[in-house]
């Protein structure tokens, strides 16, 4: 091989490698990883509730407590502010999120699909989420919630079957922080759109086990939740 041929061969190979890398990296940041919330992770204004929502807050709070007692899947939005590390995994067409608390895996479809029609949409605690990338920001739209699990929304209010959640995910330049803004709309609950933001910190690894073994019949647990210890 002559010197010019060798140089040309290398330039061609390097260009191909860089182009291929760019195609994968520039289009979609990878939000995969273990993410935790810390003491300074929360920017949560107070929600402005409708009159009917204000009247329903206490009943909802009791219902949420029942869900915790019963080990019911917590669902959204509680899944996103779980007290343990959140595991987020991203593939080309779907993003999976696993919390440690009792919950279904949350899936965000980024393959271009739409929400199912109302006759096909089965309401769940997490709702049905679709996402698309707008530059480096992941925009997520979620509908189809049911009334099970923890329904409380940070800042006030709760989710209902009429709720819609839009989220924006932005990864920091160094990939170590993930800022998510949440905006809830629901004419039966919020007088105006309610937005708040969480900042997650990436952690290198987490220890097993990954699932809380929630025992609904654990008498001590139920007693703590319903009749908590008081100072003597």
């Amino acid at each position, binding site marked *: *091989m*002559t*010197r010019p*041929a*060798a*140089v040309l*061969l*290398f330039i061609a*190979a*390097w260009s*191909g*490698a860089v182009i*291929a*890398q760019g*195609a*994968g*990296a520039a289009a979609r940041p*990878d939000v*995969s*990883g273990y993410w935790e919330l810390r003491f300074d992770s929360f920017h949560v204004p107070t929600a402005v509730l409708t009159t009917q929502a204000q009247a329903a807050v206490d009943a909802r709070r009791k219902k949420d407590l029942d869900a915790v*007692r*019963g*080990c*019911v*899947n917590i669902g959204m939005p509680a899944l996103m502010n779980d007290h343990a590390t959140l*595991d987020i*995994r*991203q*593939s*080309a*067409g*779907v*993003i*999976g999120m*696993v919390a440690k608390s009792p919950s*279904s*895996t949350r*899936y965000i479809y980024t*393959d271009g*699909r739409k929400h*199912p029609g109302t006759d*096909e*949409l*089965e309401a*769940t*605690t*997490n709702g*049905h989420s679709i996402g698309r990338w707008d530059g480096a920001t992941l925009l997520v739209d979620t509908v189809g919630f049911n009334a*099970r699990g923890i329904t409380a929304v940070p800042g006030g209010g709760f989710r209902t079957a009429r709720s819609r959640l839009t989220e924006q995910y932005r990864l920091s330049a160094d990939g170590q922080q993930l800022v998510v803004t949440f905006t809830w709309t629901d004419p039966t609950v919020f007088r105006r759109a309610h937005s708040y933001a969480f900042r997650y910190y990436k952690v290198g*690894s987490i220890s*097993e*086990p*990954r*699932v809380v*073994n*929630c*025992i*609904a*019949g*654990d008498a001590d647990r139920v007693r703590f939740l319903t009749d908590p210890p008081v100072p003597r």
Partner: protein
Amino acid sequence: MRTLYSLIAAGLLAGAVAHAQQHVSIAPDLSGMWILQDPGSGSWSEFYDNVPKPQLKPEIITDNEAIAARERAGNVVNRAQRTATCPVGNLPMMMGSSPPLNIVSSRDEVLIGAESNRARFIYTDGRPHPDVKDPAYVPSGFGHSIGRWEGDTLVVDTIGFAPRVCDSRRPVMLTPGGGRAKDTTHLVERYRLVNADELSVTFTWEDATVLLAPHTYSYTYKKLAEGTPIENNDEPNAQPQQTYITDQVEK
């Protein structure tokens, strides 16, 4: 001199390719919703055991006969109490059940969820297994899985299963064909996309306390395009004595 240029070019080319491979995943994307193909038995238990027969140790055969006799006598309800020490998950049953698997395949980890419920995790970031004999290790019905790509095949190695499960009828997890998955068990799975719509998984179970030889069988899963997972809406309080898996089976 010409040889020297050739060597330099080859070295640089290899470096460029390695650089590209670090940043662009060449592994097949297993992500999607996959449903197990039942050959049409119509019976889950018949399907579950419709695999090449394992070579079981005599004591396991005897135990299987005892379980079958108890079930014929009506012992079909799990009456074990759920306690905090009950292990979570049941890998062989999850992989062999009708609820579709939701796979999210990322670079460092593969999630496999059953319907929209809990997921098992396959670490593909190069980590080793933990010391599963360490008291700090919490065994589960999913065990601890690590995976690596061999060409187009994801090879998954699992150990660290729970020695017992909270099931009064069968206190140890059963594997297809009548084997057992427990703390002495080693499982190797091989995941390969046959085509865009078919996923083949070959399971090989090894356990000298259960099997006289490794037990291998394969499942084929079909992709559900745009499938939406449903959620298990059973109220745990409604059936406090039954495990989730038991609920699934008995329905």
